[in-house]
Structures are given as C-alpha cells and as structure tokens.
C-alpha cells in the first residue's frame, strides 16, 4: 500500500489564516507518517478529526480531493490509502472508497455526500438545484459512466463503444448549461454540483477523444473547472499524469457494471401485460378449444370407501388434527383444514383418486384441564367439542371424506402395535424423571397443572412449561413456589419412570429417508428448514409417556398408570381415523409405492410430522406410508396482533357464520391471504376491499355480464362463434393462464393459483370492454355476428372460471354452473386446456349477481365486535373510498344509458344537426361514460394495454 501526499491550496484568502488547517502554508509542512503506510496531512484540529480513506485509481477520489479544500480550517483531515478490496466501512459488505470517517465515528461512504459535507463545513447552504444535479449524477450519470470507464480501461474498447453509453448524459449537461447560459451548473459561481460532476467526468473527458466537439457549453465548463487549482491538484494526485489508465488497478477489481440501459429501476410491479405468444401456441389452443365436450374423459365412478387403485394416482390428504379443547380460529382454519380442502377438491377435479381425512385430537392434559374447568368428564368435553369442530368445518364446506377422532379403540390398537414393534426392536429407553407430585390430589402434575413464580423473570403466574411473560421455556421442577392448579397445595418433587423414544438411534434411517424424499418433493421451504435445524442440532431421546389418565394406555408392566404422550400418538390418529373409515386402511397407510401422501399443517407441527412420526414408523419396520409432501403454512395474524381466545380478539370458527358473510367469501379471503411462505394478517378493511374489488367488481362483474349478454341479446342461447385472430389470441392467453394455475396447484401454491383465476377474469372484462357487444348487437349483420362471438367466448370463459373456482369457492362455482346450465361432466373435471363447454345453441339458465357488496359500516361494526383495540384505529377511509364501486345492476343501468345516448349522438350526426346541439349531446355522453368508468372502478382514461382492433 502506498501513501499519497496531497495538499490543498488555500482557495479562500479572505479567511483567517490561523483557522486554515488545510492551507497552503499548512500543507507544505511535513507529513507525519503513521503505521501501516498511512500518511497524515498535518493539521490542528478545530472541529475534531476526520479520516479519509482512498484507494489508488479509485475515481471517487477526484471530486473528494477537489472538494476537500472547502473544509479547510474546519477539521483535521487524515488521509489513508487502502487496497481496492479492503472493507473500510464495517457495515458494508462490499468494499467502498473513498470513505470519510468522521470524528463521531460515522462514515460517509458516498462520494457526493463527502463532497457535500466539505461544502457544508464551509458554510454553504443546500439548495434544490444542487440536490437535483447530485441526484442525477448518482442515478443517471454514474451508471453510464462506470460502464464507459470499464469498457475503456478494463476491456480496452475505444470510440463509440465508450462514448455511446454516456452520450445522452453529456448532451444533457451541455444543454442545461447552454439553456441557462450560466458558466456553472447551479449558477454564476462554482458550486458543489460542479465539483462532483467534474470529478466524475474528468477521467473520461480529459481525453479529448471523449469530449465531443459539438458540445460547446460542456467543453468550456470542463476547461474552466479543470484549470482551477484544487481540481488540477486532485487530477494530478489521482491520475498521476497517466491519464485514464491510472484507474486500472482499481477498476479491474470491480465487478463489471451491469447493462445500465436495460436495468429496471421502476418501483412498480410489472404491468400485467400479455405474454408474447407463438403461432404454434395459438394454434394448439384453438385445436383444443374446438374439440369441446368430447375431450372430457369419462368420469371416475365415485366409490365409498375410497381405496387406492393400482396404476392410478392415489392421493392421500391429511389436515393436522385440531386439538379438541378449543374452538378453532381463522388461523387454524386456513393453516390446515381449508388449505387441504382446496387441494383435495383440486385433486378430485383432476380425477385423481383422492382420500381427504381429518379429525379431532382428543387425548392429553389440555383436555383434562378443560374438563375440570367446565365440570365435565374428559369424554364429555371431547364429545362436545368434536361436534363443534365438525359443525364449523361443515359450515366452511370442507370436503372431508371422513372426519374422525383419536379416542377410539383403533387408536389404542394401532398405537400399541407401533409401540410394541419399537420396543422389541430396541428403540425404546427407560429413564427416571424428576416430576412434581401433588400429594393431596395423589398424582403427578403435568406441566400445565402447575403454576408458580418464573425462575427467570419472577412473573407470578408462570405455567409449568412456559412463562407467559418472558416466553422462556421452563422445566416445571424449576418453578419457584410451585402450586397445584387444582387444589393450590404445594407439590413435592418425586421421581417417576418414563419411556423414551430413542431418536438418536433412528436418526440415520431418518436421514436416509429424507435424502430420498425431499429432492423433487413439494415440501414447503419452512418445513425443510425446521427439519434441517433439528437434525443439525442432533436428535435427543424424547419422552413418550405421561402421568395422566386421559390417553392411550401404555401396554407395559410397571406403566399401567401412565399413558402415551399426545405427540407420540396424535400423528397415529390419521391411521386410526382411516381404520375407522375402512377396515382396509392398510391399503392407504402401508402402501408407500402406490400412495402419495400430502400432509397439511401450520409450521409448529412440522417436527412431529416430518421427524417424530417418520422415526416411529421407520423404527416399527412395517412398510408405513410416509409423508411425500409436507405442506406447512406460516402464521396468520389478526389485524395487527395475534388471535387470542382469552382476550376475545379475533374471529373464531363458530363466529364467522354469525357475521352474515357467506362461507365462500370467508374461504376466498382466507385463501387470498393464505400465509404461504410468509406470515400474513387478517384485516377487516382488506377483506372489504378484496370482496368489493376482486370478487364484485372483477370476477362477479365479468361472469354476470357474460351470462346477461346471452340472456338479453340472444334469448338465453349461446350464439355462434366465428373466431377472429384476436379471439384466438385470447383463447391462447386463457389457456396459458389455466396451465399456470395447474402448475401452481400441483405444487400446492394455493394462494398464487387463486391469482390466475382473477387474471383470467380481468382478461375477460377487458375483452368485453374492448369489443362492446352491447353496441354491436344493435349494428349491422357483421356487427351482430361479432357481438355473438364475443358473448359466446366470454360465457365459455365464465364456465371455465366456474370450474377453476370450485376448489376455492365451491358454492359460488356451483351457482355459476347452475346459472349457465354447464353439463355435469364439465363441472367435475378440469382439463389442462381451455375447451368450449358451452357450444352454440346451448341454453343457459337464469343469471343473477353472485356477490354482495360489503359496506363500510357493516365491516366497522364487525371490527368492533371482534375487537382487540382495533376499533380505536381510523378505518383508513382514503383507501376504502378509492375503491368504492357500484353494484353490477348500477353498472348495467349506466351502460344502457351510454348506449342510448350514443345512439342519440349518432342520429344527430347522421341528420347533420346543428353543431351546438350535437356538442351538447356529446358532452352528456362523455359525462355518462365517465360515470360508468367510475362505477366500474376504473380510472376514467382509456385503460392501458387496450388492444387496437
């Protein structure tokens, strides 16, 4: 590393020389060498010390050194030279020079900011014009310039290759200078903007070859600045009279600048533009469309019970078993049962042989606690809550093939069998555990039956397993002043024998199995992560017994008064529920070759499904079907916080039906915000928004219009369709989107696939809007035919949507199908191509609106009812107002009026009526159109991406 001697001549002779720390006088003093090859530019500190880090050949040094003179007398400046790859700024990953370290410890790592700081020290005030130049320099000039310098210095290119990228920027400077006829960028005197831009441009422009003759104003500005002493000095120091090649040692260490022309800097998400289609794709889509109903395969006969069939795709779907002691909240519902339901319904639409099962998880401490609270027996509690759960899921239209429970003889039989197999194969250990025992109640206390003072934070009501205040996990015996939750007496520590599953011994099998299963599977990333982190930390033996009564008995001498710990036998619930559904349950659960197992859950359940149960099953050596695809969601929050039963915050399953909002709307919104890949939050305002914009205004509006046109203009019969090239393109676009939907759902990306439905409907709305069948129907024969084609194609898209919608909104899907009288086979199968299912001549039924508008005050009162402090927050009126849209009927009325008024104008024009009269009617028409656009929730101007016919 080389130190560089720099000195700054005094540019402000009027300043008190004593104060000039970096003055001509001062700069000629000796430079004190410091350790590590650093050189110190002498000075008395006045406002402290700052340290500038530069690197040989770093172009940023030019403006910084040229501006440094401004800081004279303000602070002591030390200059250190570092290597081009040295990371000076501790918080930046990539090396950056020049950097100015301030006395306070702060770093300025932006060249402009360093120059600005020097200028600010000299008393200069910031102004808009300088800010504008500096922003332009950073965002426009620098990307172009670094590309040009890289081509020139590192790649040895010449001429237009170098000048090309920067020409536009140079012209911009030239024009700004000449337009304002000022010698400097920000006015009559040299300022910060000039120094920064000059410093940036100097390496390139000092070679006359890259300073175009025709840019006169730029020319003279550049010459003026270059001849000034601070700039000259800086140039000499940095370029050392080697010209631009002096930058080589630095630039060749830099990554190649990206193609600066093509970079997308927009903050906006990509416009929902139409993808480019090849002729081939279009032709294929048209061929598939024309095959129509014939292409539907024969329907699978529905069998009960559903059993795997050799040679078919057999899909076994489970949803995590909800714990019986509570009413599930929306987060529980979307986390497993609803997500799994969408996939099960989709799977059936694909004609895959599908069994979807779930049930309540009923054993364990929590049930006993709850029973005690409610003064019932555990069995009575389970019966009560099992019915509540079943009712809720019925209301949400969850299509279980069976919804069972874990408190059955089958559960005992299968659990004990797996245990026995593990025991005889040496995978079960025994050990003694210190536990709290209540002498008065004569039993060991499970974690939740103990309360006491938290050993960590001193919280008074910490539970035996976890402190609610500090969140730390607690070992019940560590609690201070423990109390039995039932009788409030002080328990004593006693030891108790327990059984452990020897997970370390099974770890190798598990890893082998994961190694085979994970690649190419659809395990969600969070599930993979959780399993990986457990394995990384190494598995430990897990206790599988508990001193409880309410559970599966342990079939081992000496353990008669113990039961299995729920996490050992809860996952076995899937097997026993299947066994209660069919005595041939082993065809599902001991058949990994033929069965594809999808398990849905929230992420907290991943270890039991992805690790503990597979270990038990592998250790039992009975050819169990193990999870192929573990689908775990993140968490759903409520408004800004968490769902909390105890605080009465959030919507719980049984309350959703009291809101008056239909189950399908709940399903839609929950699926729309499904915590897929990230947490999400339920928000009332957002629900209103999505209902009114996506369902009412987009989807509902399109499907209703398509059906209404058939009823109104064609007497309820689907008209003849004569496809033009525009229509063929639309077919291909819809097909493409449909295929995207399939790809996503095959990967269980449920939330994303829902977007495809809405996209198709948006295409449909735009198609109707552009082609205006309501006008053409009143026109010539050709116009009428066009109106027929558009209507026919639109109503077929509506039919397709009704099927695509089924997994998400089964009732709405069914309603649309009834309105359109879609033939039954077409309702039950979803092909990968868009086919004509409503051929010309098909008679549709009565069309009516599908969705209700959600009103602000309705939502506000619901928000208050389900509360959680949200009521205080303003209802974000700005957002709501922006999307208030009219009901479809109102849109229809306006549309009719626009049509009517359009005819009046046409007639007047045809009659060559008085100009003023025509103008007045045209004004009325424009006004109506504006109202219509507003009612449809569109911006009044022509929508972007509108196709020209």
């Amino acid at each position: 590393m080389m130190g560089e001697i720099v000195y700054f001549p005094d540019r402000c002779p009027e300043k008190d020389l004593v104060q000039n720390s970096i003055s001509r006088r001062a700069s000629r003093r000796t430079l004190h060498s410091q350790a590590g090859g650093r050189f110190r530019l002498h000075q008395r500190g006045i406002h402290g010390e700052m340290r500038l880090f530069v690197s040989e050949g770093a172009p940023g040094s030019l403006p910084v050194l040229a501006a440094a003179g401004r800081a004279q007398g303000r602070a002591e400046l030390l200059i250190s030279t570092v290597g081009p790859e040295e990371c000076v700024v501790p918080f930046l990953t990539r090396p950056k020079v020049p950097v100015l370290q301030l006395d306070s410890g702060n770093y300025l790592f932006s060249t402009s900011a360093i120059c600005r700081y020097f200028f600010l020290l000299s008393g200069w005030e910031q102004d808009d014009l300088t800010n504008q130049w500096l922003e332009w320099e950073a965002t426009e000039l620098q990307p172009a310039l670094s590309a040009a310098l890289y081509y020139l210095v590192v790649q040895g290119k010449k001429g237009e290759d170098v000048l090309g990228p920067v020409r536009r920027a140079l012209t911009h400077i030239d024009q700004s200078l000449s337009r304002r006829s000022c010698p400097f960028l920000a006015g009559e005197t040299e300022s910060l903007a000039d120094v920064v831009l000059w410093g940036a441009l100097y390496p390139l422009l000092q070679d006359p070859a890259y300073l175009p003759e025709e840019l006169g104003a730029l020319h003279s500005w550049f010459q003026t600045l270059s001849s000034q002493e601070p700039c000259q000095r800086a140039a000499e120091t940095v370029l050392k009279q080697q010209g631009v090649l002096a930058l080589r040692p630095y630039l060749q260490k830099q990554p190649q600048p990206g193609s600066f022309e093509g970079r997308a800097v927009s903050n906006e998400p990509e416009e929902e533009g139409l993808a480019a289609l090849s002729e081939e794709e279009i032709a294929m889509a048209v061929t598939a469309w024309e095959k129509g109903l014939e292409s539907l395969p024969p329907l699978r006969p529905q069998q009960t019970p559903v059993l795997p069939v050799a040679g078919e795709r057999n899909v076994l779907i489970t949803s995590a078993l909800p714990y019986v002691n509570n009413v599930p909240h929306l987060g529980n519902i979307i986390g497993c049962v609803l997500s799994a339901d969408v996939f099960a319904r989709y799977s059936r639409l694909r004609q895959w042989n599908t069994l979807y099962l779930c049930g309540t998880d009923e054993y364990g401490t929590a049930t006993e606690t709850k029973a005690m609270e409610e003064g019932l027996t555990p069995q009575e509690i389970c019966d009560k809550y099992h019915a509540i759960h079943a009712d809720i899921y019925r209301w949400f239209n969850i299509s279980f093939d069976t919804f069972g429970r874990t408190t059955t003889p089958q559960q005992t039989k299968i659990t004990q069998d797996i245990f026995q197999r593990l025991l005889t194969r040496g995978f079960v250990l025994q050990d003694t555990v210190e536990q709290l025992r209540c002498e008065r109640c004569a039993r060991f206390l499970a974690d939740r039956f103990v309360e006491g003072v938290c050993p960590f934070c001193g919280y008074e009501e910490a539970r035996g397993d976890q402190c609610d205040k500090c969140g730390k996990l607690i070992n019940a015996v560590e609690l201070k002043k423990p109390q039995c939750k039932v009788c409030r007496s002080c328990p004593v520590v006693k030891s108790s024998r327990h059984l452990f599953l020897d997970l370390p011994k099974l770890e190798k099998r598990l890893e082998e199995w994961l190694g085979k299963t994970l690649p190419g599977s659809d395990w969600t990333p969070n599930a993979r992560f959780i399993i990986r982190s457990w394995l990384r930390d190494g598995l430990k033996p897990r206790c599988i017994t508990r001193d409880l009564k309410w559970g599966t008995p342990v079939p081992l001498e000496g353990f008669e008064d113990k039961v299995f710990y729920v996490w050992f036998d809860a996952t076995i619930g899937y097997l026993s529920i299947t066994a209660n559904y069919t005595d041939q349950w082993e065809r599902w659960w001991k058949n990994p070759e033929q069965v594809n197992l999808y398990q849905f859950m929230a992420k907290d359940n991943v270890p039991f499904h992805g690790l503990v149960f597979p270990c038990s099953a592998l250790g039992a050596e009975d050819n169990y079907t193990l999870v192929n695809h573990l689908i775990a969601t993140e968490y759903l929050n409520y408004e800004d916080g968490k769902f909390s039963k105890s605080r009465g915050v959030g919507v719980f399953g049984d309350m959703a039906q009291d809101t008056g909002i239909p189950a399908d709307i709940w399903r839609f919104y929950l699926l729309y915000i499904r915590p897929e890949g990230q947490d999400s939050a339920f928000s009332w305002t957002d629900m209103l928004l999505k209902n009114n914009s996506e369902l009412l205004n987009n989807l509902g509006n399109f499907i209703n219009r398509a059906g209404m046109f058939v009823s109104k203009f064609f007497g309820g019969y689907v008209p003849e369709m004569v496809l033009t090239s525009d229509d063929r393109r639309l077919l291909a676009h819809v097909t493409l989107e449909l295929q995207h939907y399939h790809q996503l759902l095959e990967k269980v990306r449920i939330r994303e696939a829902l977007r495809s439905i809405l996209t198709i409907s948006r295409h449909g709305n735009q198609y109707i809007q552009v082609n205006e069948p309501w006008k053409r129907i009143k026109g010539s024969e050709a116009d009428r035919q066009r109106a027929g084609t558009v209507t026919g194609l639109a109503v077929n898209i509506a039919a397709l949507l009704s099927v695509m919608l089924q997994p998400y909104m089964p009732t709405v899907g069914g309603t649309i199908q009834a309105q359109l009288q879609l033939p039954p086979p077409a309702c039950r199968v979803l092909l990968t191509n868009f086919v004509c299912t409503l051929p010309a001549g098909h008679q549709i039924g009565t069309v009516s609106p599908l969705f209700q508008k959600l009103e602000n005050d309705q939502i506000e009162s619901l928000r208050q009812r389900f509360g959680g402090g949200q009521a205080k927050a303003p209802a974000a009126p700005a957002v709501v107002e922006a999307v208030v849209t009219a009901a479809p009927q109102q849109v229809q009325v306006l549309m009719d009026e626009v049509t009517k008024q359009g005819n009046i104008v046409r007639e007047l024009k045809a009659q060559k009526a008085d100009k003023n009269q025509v103008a007045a009617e045209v004004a009325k028409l424009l006004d109506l159109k504006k109202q219509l656009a507003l009612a449809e929730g569109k911006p009044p101007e022509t929508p972007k991406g509108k196709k020209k016919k």
Partner: protein
Amino acid sequence: MAAAAELTLLEKSLGLSKGNKYSAQGERQIPVLQTNNGPSLTGLTTIAAHLVKQANKEYLLGSTAEEKAIVQQWLEYRVTRVDGHSNKDDIRTLLKDLNSYLEDKVYLTGYNFTLADILLYYGLHRFIVDLTVQEKEKYLNVSRWFCHIQHYPGIRQHLSVVVFIKNRLYTNSH
C-alpha cells in the same frame, strides 16, 4: 409504488395540504414537479427535500453539517441501491448492510428522525412485506427500525402494516 404516489404520501405526512401534481419522465418514470416560482424539479429525493422545506420542516434534512450529509447519503442510497436493484441477492446484501448499520441506531442519523427514514421506509416497504418471519428475525435491526417508522405518526398511511413477531421463533433450541 410509483414515485408520484410516494411524493403524495410524503406531502400528507408533512402536513402539506395543497397536493402537487407530478409528471413522470423517461422509462424510469422519474417524477417531475413544476414549481410556481421557478424551474421544474426532477428526481425523487430532490423533490422530497423541496417539500420538506416547503413544509418548514428543515430539521428533517438534518441539523448539523454531519447530519445533513448523512441524510443525503441515505437518500442517495435509496434511489441508487434500493430502487436500482431488484434481484434477491442484492436485496439480501442491502438488508444485511442496513441491519449491521442500524445495530446501534434508532434512526438512520442516530437519534433524530429525518427524511432519510421516511424515504427509506417507503422504498423498502415492498421488500419488507415479502420477508418471511425467519428473514425478519435475521434482519432484526432493520425490522425494529422499520416497525418503528411504520408506527411513526402520519408516515405509513395506506401502506400495509408489516407484522413483526415479538417472540423469536427460529432460535435453535427446542
């Protein structure tokens, strides 16, 4: 968020009643403001600083020379680094850097809330919204800062609230 929409948000958070109209320039849709008494202004941070002065809230641009330079440095960072990159690796580096920078800071300048916090918040919103819980924990300091700014009165407006969980989930203990 388009730049014009962002500036409108800023106007509201600054309490400027009269909304300006912005046009957009070039393919990057750089915002342009036609001022009443002078030439037009171009560029997000330039206009933003202008609005701050218009609202007589100069303190949002920093009060000392050092603070002013730091504010401008982060504004530049916003339009070059945050807006300039959308590939995942760049975003990760950016969040990592910011996270380590914010380790000992409440605001970008240290202890004072400035325009840099507002515009960086607006600019990062689209990325933070997409972070997983795990990533939010990884960039804990960014999360803390972001959560703080989004609850700063009048800043967030219609932007969605990003939820940050207080309890850590991805600790390695189990």
